[in-house]
């Protein structure tokens, strides 16, 4: 703990303008790729878990190249908690909505009564909704795992 504090107050070992600039340029593309992986999961390898991990990795990259404070400034703790809950809620909410609309739990074709797209198309679209929920939950949980473990729960100075 003491070592970590000493190191954190002094110059960061990996503190270089090259790394910072390249990470700043790279992060938007990593996030765009993460969104692409989530949305394109029906037609190519990918889906909620993989895209969520890519999105979370962009914030972890930010925390590694700059410091934990910068990453928390871009993605606050409150937003993190809200997104994690929203992700889990989207999944269970879609599943429960299917039951409310008269189908079975998680039977997306029952949502056809809500917006008439056709039961088979709804099964495709329901998978997409669920994947978005999984992606949000995985992204925020990955980021919060990194924050907690790298700073020992203090959320002030990380690696």
């Amino acid at each position: 703990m003491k070592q970590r504090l000493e190191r954190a107050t002094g110059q960061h070992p990996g503190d270089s303008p090259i790394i910072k600039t390249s990470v700043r340029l790279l992060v938007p593309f990593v996030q765009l790729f993460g969104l692409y992986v989530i949305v394109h999961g029906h037609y190519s390898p990918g889906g909620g878990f993989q895209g969520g991990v890519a999105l979370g990795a962009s914030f972890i990259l930010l925390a590694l190249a700059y410091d934990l404070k910068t990453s928390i400034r871009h993605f606050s703790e409150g937003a993190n908690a809200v997104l994690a809950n929203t992700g889990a809620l989207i999944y269970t909410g879609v599943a429960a909505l299917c039951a409310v609309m008269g189908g079975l739990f998680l039977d997306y074709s029952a949502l056809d009564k809500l917006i008439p797209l056709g039961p088979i198309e709804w099964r495709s679209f329901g998978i997409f909704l669920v994947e978005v929920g999984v992606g949000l939950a995985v992204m925020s949980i990955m980021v919060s795992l990194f924050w907690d473990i790298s700073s020992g729960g203090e959320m002030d100075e990380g690696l």
Partner: protein
Amino acid sequence: MDGMLQEVVAKYNYWIYVVLMMIGFYAMIGKRNLVKKLLGMNIFQTAIILFFVSTGVKRGGGIPILDKYKVLAEGIDPTQIVNPLPHVLMLTAIVVSVSVTGVALAVMQRIHREYGTLEEDEILERISE
């Protein structure tokens, strides 16, 4: 001789997974350090994931991403596509392994904060003091 060679070609992947799994098993039961135990568990999980994925392989099979309109028009022969079921199960297993690793690292950090060490016998000594 030819039969034995065929046996080796048909089974050598399972032998590799068994060796990998035993490396993880030895790290889990033989090492004293908690981080080494956790790494052993991760190697063990990797061996199981590889084993499951390899059971779904079909010789000459394509990836399980199909051409929608072609399949809707004329159907598909299941022997031409690798088994998607192990992929799905192992996708969830990978996520569980990440969660387990995260929780284990957090508990280890807490143990280190409490007892100042991650060696098993030293922790036991300090608990009994």
